[in-house]
């Protein structure tokens, strides 16, 4: 019986398994201590922001916190007819405090997102409320503006009652939950985010493709040229990499603008007439050109490091066995570079999907990406929870790409160097 067989002992008389575990445990603790600063750093700088992003994106306590009594009173309201006097009274008291603390502006902004026209009636109420008499608040509030007597507005208020919501995620894909609680698409003319997502994917895809097409021959040259030329070429690839991103983007602006150098050359060679200089900036073209150039090293370097390891004698062997240069390339060289292609494409695609500065500067209206929209939401509309939601959607997208890649090629096939 196998379980009954004698345990192997070390020369010290301790069972081998146990002593092995003991040794390994010590090693494991040591290894853990070594990586713990990194782990700590990751938790502080990476995981905790993402978790807080997650909370911000679904956190809708802002309105609830501003109108605590109102929402309490609203619990009994069935939402069919206008709410009762208690709700109106609670609302009056909440709003009064907000006005005293000068926080009522924020409420009106928030409510206006929920339903158009809320801002003006809240403002008007703030003005009129000073002269309110005690009791019968329902009458008094409804007298301020006829919309206060419209049950739709009260329903909109009630919709803000839940503390957590996924509405921002719906908004991110141009959908919303309508009055009946159904998820529907926003009207055609107000859809903006879906287009933006698609454009982001499209630009990231083509930038990856262009980078690949340009980097493959460069990397091949780098790997096969004699040392003194390949060093020079390597510097040419890396020099832009060492230059500030802003400087590089700015130089593309100088090159690509309508009175810029590229256009001047076009005119000078007679390719285009002086009065019909093509628009190459503040649109997709600008984004493509600048991003391809900026992300090129991220494609070249993994490809180069893989190609460097491919012995030239393999190509020779292929040829001596009768393969034409093309067959030899396709059957021998190319399959061996796939790990590098995978690494480069994944790297460039993921960076491109989240790219911000370059499209912001040269992208114009038609060349901006989802990150520019996120930045806009954070800086201009101050809708942080929407920005967080979109940020997380982007992150999820990247993880999905990574997952698909892993399924198709296998992540252990990646070679960065």
């Amino acid at each position, binding site marked *: 019986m196998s379980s009954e067989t004698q345990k192997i002992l070390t020369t010290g008389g301790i069972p081998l398994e146990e002593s092995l575990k003991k040794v390994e445990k010590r090693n494991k603790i040591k290894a853990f201590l070594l990586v713990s600063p990194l782990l700590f750093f990751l938790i502080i700088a990476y995981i905790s922001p993402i978790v807080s992003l997650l909370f911000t994106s679904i956190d809708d306590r802002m309105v609830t916190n501003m109108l605590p009594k109102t929402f309490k009173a609203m619990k009994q309201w069935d939402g069919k007819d206008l709410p009762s006097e208690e709700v109106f009274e609670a609302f009056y008291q909440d709003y009064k405090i907000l006005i005293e603390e000068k926080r009522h502006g924020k409420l009106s902004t928030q409510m206006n997102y929920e339903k158009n026209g809320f801002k003006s009636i809240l403002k008007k109420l703030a003005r009129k409320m000073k002269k309110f008499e005690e009791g019968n608040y329902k009458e008094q509030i409804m007298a301020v503006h006829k919309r206060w007597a419209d049950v739709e507005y009260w329903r909109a208020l009630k919709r803000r009652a839940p503390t957590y919501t996924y509405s921002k995620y719906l908004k991110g894909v141009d959908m919303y939950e309508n009055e009946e609680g159904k998820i529907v698409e926003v009207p055609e003319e107000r859809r903006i985010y879906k287009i933006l997502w698609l454009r982001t994917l499209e630009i990231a895809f083509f930038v990856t493709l262009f980078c690949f097409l340009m980097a493959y021959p460069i990397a091949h040259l780098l790997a096969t040229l004699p040392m003194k030329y390949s060093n020079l070429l390597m510097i040419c690839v890396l020099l832009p990499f060492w230059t500030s991103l802003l400087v590089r983007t700015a130089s593309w602006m100088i090159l690509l603008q309508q009175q810029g150098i590229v256009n001047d050359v076009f005119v000078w060679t007679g390719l285009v007439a002086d009065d019909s200089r093509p628009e190459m900036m503040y649109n997709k073209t600008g984004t493509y050109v600048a991003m391809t150039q900026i992300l090129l090293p991220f494609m070249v370097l993994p490809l180069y490091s893989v190609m460097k390891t491919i012995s030239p004698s393999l190509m*020779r062997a292929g040829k001596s066995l009768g*393969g034409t240069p093309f067959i030899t390339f396709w059957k021998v060289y190319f399959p061996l570079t796939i790990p590098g292609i995978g690494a480069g494409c994944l790297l460039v695609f993921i960076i491109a999907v989240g790219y911000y500065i370059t499209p912001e500067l040269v992208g114009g209206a038609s060349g901006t990406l989802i990150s520019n929209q996120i930045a806009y939401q954070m800086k201009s509309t101050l809708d942080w929870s929407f920005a967080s939601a979109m940020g997380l959607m982007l992150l999820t997208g990247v993880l999905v790409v990574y997952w698909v890649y892993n399924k198709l090629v296998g992540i252990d096939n990646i070679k960065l160097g």
Partner: protein
Amino acid sequence: MSETDSFVKFKKVDKSYDGEILVVKDLNLDVAQGEFLTLLGPSGSGKTTILMMLAGFETPTNGEIYLDGEAISNIPPYKRRIGMVFQNYALFPHMTVYENLSFPLKVRKVSKDETDKKINKALSMVSLTGFETRMPGQLSGGQQQRVAVARALVFDPKLVLMDEPLGALDKNLRESMQYELKHIHESLGVTVVYVTHDQGEALTMSNRIAVFNEGKIQQLSNPDKLYEEPVNSFVAEFIGENNTFQGEVSEISGNKCRVKLGSGDEILANPISVKLKGDKTKISLRPERALINPEEKIENKFKGKIEEVIYHGDHTRIRMNLLGKSQFILKIPNSSARMDLKLGNEMIIGWHSKDCRALDLT
């Protein structure tokens, strides 16, 4: 010989990689159909370079190579039908053994049945049947080399180039593969140009051997002649063991010459590269040609003292001090009647003048 007589012909070929050093100098070499020719030489002597030029991966800086009567510079590498075993095997790492071997057949559009048959035959030739589905990374160094050999032979090339194909094998496998290769060569009748820096391998396998040094052929002849009759001191020292003496020719007549050594002793030798009295020379004598206690009338006879005895299994090597030189080596077969080989013993050593060759001094 005209261009069409020999199968491979190098005509005044020079090769330089950097424009400064000639790696191959004025190479003239003919290889006959079905011959097994070995290029033998120390590391860096240009052997791989010659194969590369023949296979078409390097172009001669000067001169022309002919293959089957045709100037080779007009034929691209993939049309030359030359099988090559590379020094580092060059197996395709992403293909199985089967796929590696089927590559040359696939590009020639050989049918599936035919391919299977050929691959089976090639693998059994190198005794690797059953390894079809392995990846090269899952094979030992020696197995990889054998796959490389099989791959170079599987498409029936008219010429096979092998660049140290047995370098990674242990002694036993190496020897059995040497016989295997020799056997394959004989049964297929294919022309082989073989590169090695192992002289034993060269001697056992080849029809002819070209000894290279610094890009030049030092001697081109069949194995026994190469060993017995080296034409210069490089070849004598490179092939087999060798006792040497330096001196000056004091008398020369016909096939004998008298050489005066630095110690004042005189040796009668066979003049190979010396012509005139007063020429400086290096005398070369194979250890097994030196006789112990020779007959009375032998031409060279001296007394030496044993300084070291080294047991080698089948023979014993003795280092002795002879003619003022303490590096004189003797090989004595280990028969049952062992001589009295003791440190410090004195012995009479002698040899015939035809066995000691007066060569150039380098």
